[in-house]
């Protein structure tokens, strides 16, 4: 009896970890793409995820638009916001390749949005309640919450679309090239601004998806976003920066570590363990745990 329960419990923990880890994966893919061409960790990524959680919240509360349907509005809106943020705030710093300034701008965006959201929506947690919010599919004693499962599927689809975009389109190939060697890319005729803007469009577009995911699963407040950047960085350390699949897998592994450690070790230790893993991976395999190192041409 106890053994059966344990197996079920372990499976349940694994499922929880995988399902929530996919959101970390989505955040990590966005961070990785922007890092690829801009060479900065875009610290406002998580806060923008929360901004779109609020957008989803507003669309639902004010206009009665279903959260999943709101993706049709949120994704293009987020992609456009990405381009707008790059074009208005980063062009100058990127042209001078001034990464310190770029990083400061990202921090500025983060604090600005946190405080803007506090004014607009107060600091109290918000959440969305739909008929399916607490719907759980159960079989053999294992429960799969519907919203988490949908979030997971959305994350997989989004990652798949990004991979296809990067592999199959000309501009996508240019983004990959620029991530590898920006100088060589400009010698091909690729404009750094163009690829930076595309990276921002995709990265922030993904933040839109993660925001909707977030809004359907958990309550959130304006200051909840930064954790996604931290978790995204850990996911990238695990999965290796520069690969979409690696970032997603890194997020999922991180979700598993979190889920298992939150059950097996006393509360409060989970975060310490997560960042310990981060440090160990950086120490031991700074190119990423899952990366086979590519010979430099």
């Amino acid at each position, binding site marked *: 009896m106890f053994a059966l329960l344990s197996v079920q419990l372990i499976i349940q923990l694994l499922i929880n970890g995988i399902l929530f880890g996919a959101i970390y994966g989505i955040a990590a893919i966005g961070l990785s793409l922007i890092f690829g061409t801009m060479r900065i960790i875009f610290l406002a990524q998580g806060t923008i995820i929360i901004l779109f959680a609020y957008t989803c919240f507003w669309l639902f509360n004010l206009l009665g638009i279903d959260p999943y349907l709101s993706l049709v509005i949120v994704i293009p809106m987020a992609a456009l916001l990405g381009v707008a943020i790059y074009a208005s705030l980063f062009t100058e710093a990127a042209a001078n390749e001034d990464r310190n300034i770029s990083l400061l701008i990202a921090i500025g965006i983060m604090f600005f949005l946190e405080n803007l959201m506090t004014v607009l929506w107060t600091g109290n947690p918000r959440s969305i309640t739909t008929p399916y919010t607490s719907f759980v599919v159960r079989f053999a004693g294992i429960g799969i919450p519907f919203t988490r499962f949908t979030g997971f599927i959305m994350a997989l689809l989004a990652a798949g679309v990004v991979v296809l975009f990067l592999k199959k389109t*000309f501009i996508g*190939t*240019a983004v990959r090239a620029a991530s590898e060697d920006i*100088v*060589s*890319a400009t010698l091909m*005729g690729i404009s750094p601004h163009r690829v930076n803007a595309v990276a921002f469009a995709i990265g922030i577009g993904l933040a839109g998806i993660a925001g909707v995911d977030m809004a359907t699963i958990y309550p959130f407040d304006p200051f909840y976003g930064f954790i996604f950047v931290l978790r995204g960085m850990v996911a990238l350390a695990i999965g290796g920066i520069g690969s979409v699949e690696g970032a997603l897998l890194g997020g999922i592994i991180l979700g598993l570590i979190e889920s298992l450690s939150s059950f097996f070790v006393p509360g409060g230790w989970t975060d310490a363990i997560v960042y310990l893993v981060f440090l160990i991976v950086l120490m031991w395999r700074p190119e990423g745990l899952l990366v086979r190192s*590519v010979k*430099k*041409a």
Partner: protein
Amino acid sequence: MENNALVVKGVDVLYGDVQALWDVSLEVKQGTIVSLVGANGAGKSTLLKTISGINRARKGEILFSGKSVTHLKPQEVVDIGISHVPEGRRLFASLTVLENLKLGAYPPRARAVFGESLTKAFDLFPVLKSRQNQKAGSLSGGEQQMLAIGRAMMSQPTILMLDEPSLGLSPILVKTMFDLVASLNKQGVTMLLVEQNVRQALKIANHAYVLKNGRIVMNGGGEELLADPEVQKAYIGERWRKK
């Protein structure tokens, strides 16, 4: 003046406070091979990077077909027909051979004739065709150099600037590389060649410049410089003199 593809006039380049080029001038006539030789750190790569827009000239002017390109960005320079194969090739290692070639044809003008250029590149380097789906990083040194040149040719350049194409290649491949430069030139591509292999570079050149400590110290016909005792002593060495 009309048959000058590229003119560099009195260019100074600084890296921070350190001056790398002093009042450098050179001319590359349409359809010729011009070699730029000199010791390590003389400023050869700096000059190519300045022409292609990676470095900025503090003073002076660079003209291409009579028009100033001094202030253009690298992506604009390749668009008007100057293609630069940088030192160390700078391939996109994690991208396939075909993807590297595709990006070579990035400027819209080149994209329009992509199929044609690709056939040409594969005719020139059949090995690239058979390896088109391999990652560029998995190619041998010689193959990588071919890919770098093939990629640069995809932009349909009027002038091709090669920085140390023979670097790190075996003696047989070095010969192949110089034969290739000559044959591309015969097909009408103007060449600006930077080389440490001074003897070969001068042999092949219609005209050549010697760069020393950031200044042009000598220039003349390729064979003429090759015969110059000072050049022989400084750059070619005893063992070549008898040949």
